[in-house]
């Protein structure tokens, strides 16, 4: 990883977000919901990201909101990945009605419009906490990745080394765990990263339309208030730009980590240009005359 600048940048950025998720609420200079007399102020040394129409400090809101975003992203990513591996790999490896049944199940989940379903489920639950939102997103977003894993497993299960393992009498779970799963690492990892991103965007979308953890802050609630108070029309760019940038940064960090995982798992993708020599397939570089 050390000689992979993309992955390193992504990991550092993710690390910063993770640290902020833990200490953000304590770092925040103000109580995020606290009102003051400084109404709708642009960024200043006192309020780095300016204030809302109620005089609340936006910097504190963004800082405090990181925890909820990272928590929901991580939990639902984890839930969805575990489900997709279980369903996808099993559906791909098993033949017959079991495989077909699991495949049909993921197809059904695939065509369910996730966001409206999430809105309905969260509104019918007694309380909307971060955990319930994370679980609902995780339980509804695993199907796409399960299909990808099923397709890849179908291709792997007939490879010679898997056939050899089967002929050797290895047990099914051993074949799946030791012969097939390692070859799916890149797909699983990229699926995880993609689901985390999807979960973060879903949570922010939900908060933006008003479905969020009661009393808590996340980047979506900041955007919700900015929208409902017509920040754009009032020229209060500082209200929505920081939260939007934070979402973009988190997404970029996740994508960079994804590239890094791909290159780590598949050495052929490593295209590090060695000492400024650009490698191109089909046009082998010719080094300048050696100096020695």
């Amino acid at each position: 990883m050390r000689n992979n600048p993309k992955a390193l940048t992504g990991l550092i950025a993710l690390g910063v977000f993770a640290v902020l998720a833990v200490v953000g609420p304590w770092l925040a200079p103000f109580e995020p919901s606290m009102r003051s007399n400084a109404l709708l102020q642009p960024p200043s040394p006192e309020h780095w990201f300016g204030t809302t129409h109620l005089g609340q400090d936006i910097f504190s809101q963004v800082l405090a909101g990181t925890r909820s975003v990272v928590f929901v992203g991580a939990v639902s990513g984890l839930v969805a990945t575990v489900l997709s591996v279980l369903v996808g790999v099993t559906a791909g490896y098993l033949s017959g009605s079991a495989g077909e049944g699991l495949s049909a199940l993921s197809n059904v989940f695939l065509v369910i419009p996730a966001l409206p379903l999430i809105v309905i489920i969260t509104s019918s639950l007694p309380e909307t906490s971060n955990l319930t939102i994370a679980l609902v997103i995780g339980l509804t977003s695993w199907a796409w990745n399960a299909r990808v894993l099923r397709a890849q497993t179908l291709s792997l299960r007939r490879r010679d080394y898997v056939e050899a393992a089967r002929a050797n009498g290895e047990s099914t779970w051993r074949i799946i765990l030791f012969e097939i799963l390692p070859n799916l690492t890149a797909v699983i990892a990229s699926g995880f990263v993609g689901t985390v991103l999807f979960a973060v965007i879903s949570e922010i979308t939900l908060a933006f339309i008003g479905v969020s953890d009661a009393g808590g802050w996340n980047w979506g609630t900041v955007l919700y208030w900015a929208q409902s108070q017509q920040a754009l029309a009032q020229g209060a760019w500082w209200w929505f730009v920081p939260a939007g940038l934070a979402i973009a940064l988190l997404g970029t960090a996740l994508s960079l980590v994804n590239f890094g995982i791909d290159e780590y798992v598949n050495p052929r993708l490593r295209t590090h240009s060695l000492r400024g020599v650009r490698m191109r397939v089909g046009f082998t570089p010719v080094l300048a005359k050696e100096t020695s």
Partner: protein
Amino acid sequence: MKERILEVRGLNVDYGVGQEAVRAVREVDLTLHRGEVLGLAGESGSGKSTLAYGMTRLLPPPGVVAGGEVIYHLGDGTTVDLLRIRDADLRRLRWAEIAIVFQGAINSLNPVQRISAQLLDVLKAHSPRSSPRSRQDRARELLGLVGIAADRLSSYPHELSGGMRQRVMIAMALALEPRVVIMDEPTTALDVVVQRQILRTLVELRERLGFSVVFITHDLSLLAEFSDRIAIMYAGQVVEEAVSADLYRTPLHPYSDGLLQSFPALKGPRRELSGIAGSPPDLRMMPSGCPFHPRCARAMDVCGERAPVLGQSRDNRSVACWLHPVAVN
């Protein structure tokens, strides 16, 4: 003196750059004349394929050409250095002037496209103004050249046998009437009967069309039979180069001798098969002096101290061995 068509001078090819670089081909000089079959032979890992791909700049990363010249003589008498020309020019030159038949025909043909589509693609890409009918005729003619019935044009690769697929690859290489064809172990995966058929086709085609061939193989007996000259490679260097009959009868370098002792002759007196003890050197830790001396039965003190250079020995043959003092020019 025959007309030269491709000259390799002092070619160095590395894998990796800087400290970790491993030199897989070092200071190779080769000359290919018009209409000639030049055989490149050596053990696995001796740098035969690296040389061929390095001089055509087809080596995948982390391969780099570290130095040297590859002079190609164009039909109009001018020359170009393949290592210095622009990418667009190199692209034009490839296939039309220098074509390659790759090692695995199975992997080189697209399994989901008909043979015709793959043949016509080349013709269309390099002469976009030709009519579809003329391209179709040319594709039929090409398959005919390599001895495949024209109705096979609409087959998919999996419907052909291994030998037929290899013939299709040869037909594709010849599609634009190149003057040089580089063949990287084109018959290695085939049995000897098919091998023989394909080589016979190749020899006929060469006489008819007059192209030159660089033929890479580890099968020296094959080369002895149908190539004009043979270059023996060891650890990335050419250790001996001679007219194939001379090399077959009187190999000068102990390594060439060892290779020739490794397979039985069909005719003539019986002789003991000896083979070559040991294995090729690690390119990261090359032995001092001659790279072959740790395995050489006739090694002398000087072999471990100084590396012999390839030069003209008696009888106008090139060899790099202290047993055969050479006149360094």
